[in-house]
């Protein structure tokens, strides 16, 4: 499927320009989720899609693919952030994910809720992005008989 990158210089140059913008917009959507439509899932999909675009255009030896392979090692880190926030709430004596009980020093009730939600959203985004990239890698491994542990 993706043995080489895309050859056209137009595609390569514009991708080099567009991918950072996609990532920036993904982050914007992630943080805008506090106030309006958006949030961890959509932001994570955008971050993942930007990496997938990089893999498809610059090929398996390109720099985005190398970054994505490193990212795959952190599989589950996002969920750990999510569970970690929930665990901090448990330690504070509230139910799992009850942000008002989250134990972070120097924060009052509303700020705790705010920080708690944004942290779980970051966790969700990280996990969705890694999951999207890992799907591409496993399809790639299936199409060329090369076995990679995706």
């Amino acid at each position, binding site marked *: 499927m993706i043995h080489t990158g895309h050859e056209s210089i137009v595609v390569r140059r514009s991708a080099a320009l567009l991918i950072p913008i996609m990532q920036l917009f993904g982050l914007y959507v992630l943080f805008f989720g506090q106030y309006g439509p958006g949030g961890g899932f959509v932001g994570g999909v955008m971050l993942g899609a930007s990496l997938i675009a990089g893999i498809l255009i610059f090929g398996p030896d390109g720099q985005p693919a190398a970054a994505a392979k490193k990212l795959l090692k952190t599989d589950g880190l996002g969920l750990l952030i999510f569970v970690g926030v*929930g665990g901090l709430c448990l330690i504070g004596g509230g139910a799992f994910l009850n942000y008002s009980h989250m134990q972070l020093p120097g924060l009052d009730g509303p700020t705790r809720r705010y920080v708690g939600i944004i942290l779980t959203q970051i966790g969700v985004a990280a996990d969705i992005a890694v999951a999207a990239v890992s799907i591409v890698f496993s399809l790639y491994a299936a199409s060329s008989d090369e076995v990679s542990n995706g």
Partner: protein
Amino acid sequence: MTYHIPALVFLVPFVTAIGLPLIALRDERRCRPAALAALSVMAVLSLMNLGSVLSQGEIRYAFSGWAPPVGIEWVADEIASIMVVAATLLALVSVLYSSPFPIQTLQGRSVPYYSILLLLVSGLSGVIYAGDLFNIFVFLEIVALSAYSLVAVPGGRALVSAFRYLIMGALGASFYLLGVAYFYASTGTLNIADLAQRTPGLLESKAVIGGLIFMFIGLGIKMALMPLHAWLPDAYSDAPDTASPILAALLTKVALLVWVRILFWVIGVGDAEQPAVVFSLVWVMGALASVGGVVLALSQTEIKRIFAYGGIAHVGLVLIGVGQGSHTGLTAGLFYLLNDAVMQCALFLLAGVLVHQYGVRTLDDLKSVNVSSSWVVGAFVVVAVSMIGLPPTGGFFGKWYIVLSAVESRNYFALAAIIITTLLTLAYFARVLERMFRGAPKSPQVPDTPLSFRASVAALAAAIMGLGLWSDRIVSVLLEATRGLGQ
């Protein structure tokens, strides 16, 4: 503190599952100890939960502090707590038992294998605890997805079985979800406690009846009810020997438990006339499944497949008990479900030992070897006695209460089905035992049975005897927990 234990029971294996790639980053051999440690902690927590539920009453856990029906609710009542204890201990025994299997059989995939195994166990606890129909669906899917990938681990033929199981399981999940949607459309809630108040008046509604039928078909595929069972024998016999005990013990049982919950906790309360049709459907299907399962078990030659069909028959027996609609029948069904989980785990564990120690897969193979280990043979006899239903094992008392409930409601067809099932179970175990005891006298010397095999089969045989010897106490707890349900 005790209030949070249900969440912790779920979180311990879940966090270990997602942290496992980090724990085993340097050394793959750390996976098994980590999984064992997580399951041991989970076992202790689930026992603590059972203790507190039995002494202080049920725990209703509201996630993130939102009260139901807005928030997600977990209900740890007596039945859920007992089932979680059983699930956790069986998972612990099956991981303990897997140690002599060389790690090379996993071909460097032990991190994903143990991760998925732990996800399966945490998903099981979620299904059992979940207090609303949609969360039950979510956790059933976590369990099912983990099970598909565990079945596929050996590769080759197992891939085909896993794919078939995937298609059937996805179909079952869709049917169940469709039924949930019908319930939501007609009642406006999915919380089981809320549904219990609203559905009894709505049983005339075609939407509720349709939803109930969809749920029954969906869960019927998941619990391998007789005409929908085709995925099970292949999936269980091709699954890795280390994973099949836990799959066989718990996958069909949790779906069965969900169906029992819907039958008694959602629609079986209040109006006694209308659900009678549903209950007769359930016991007739159960009777067909139990007789059909044993007949098919008799015609198998591969040992794991015999046990798989035996499991299908026992799902039918539970449904016969539950389908009587009486208090006795419900208790009998739940008690037999508990017994069946332990027996299935023990059977597949013994089948794994036979493969690993003696290279025996079929009945004919069994003829040419000499099963010399007294631990294996002893445990096998105990499990066989329990499967057939002779005292003093748990299987006898479970069957006894099911027979009692059938006699109480003067249901002689169900009684006949139970007796036929018992006799044919005796017949297929006789086929296995006959070949086991008439082993070849001059068979090659096999190495001594490893300690973990002996310990795990002995633990399960002891559990089966224990379930029989303390059956009156367990049944009285179950009778107390189901007070007011059924007629």
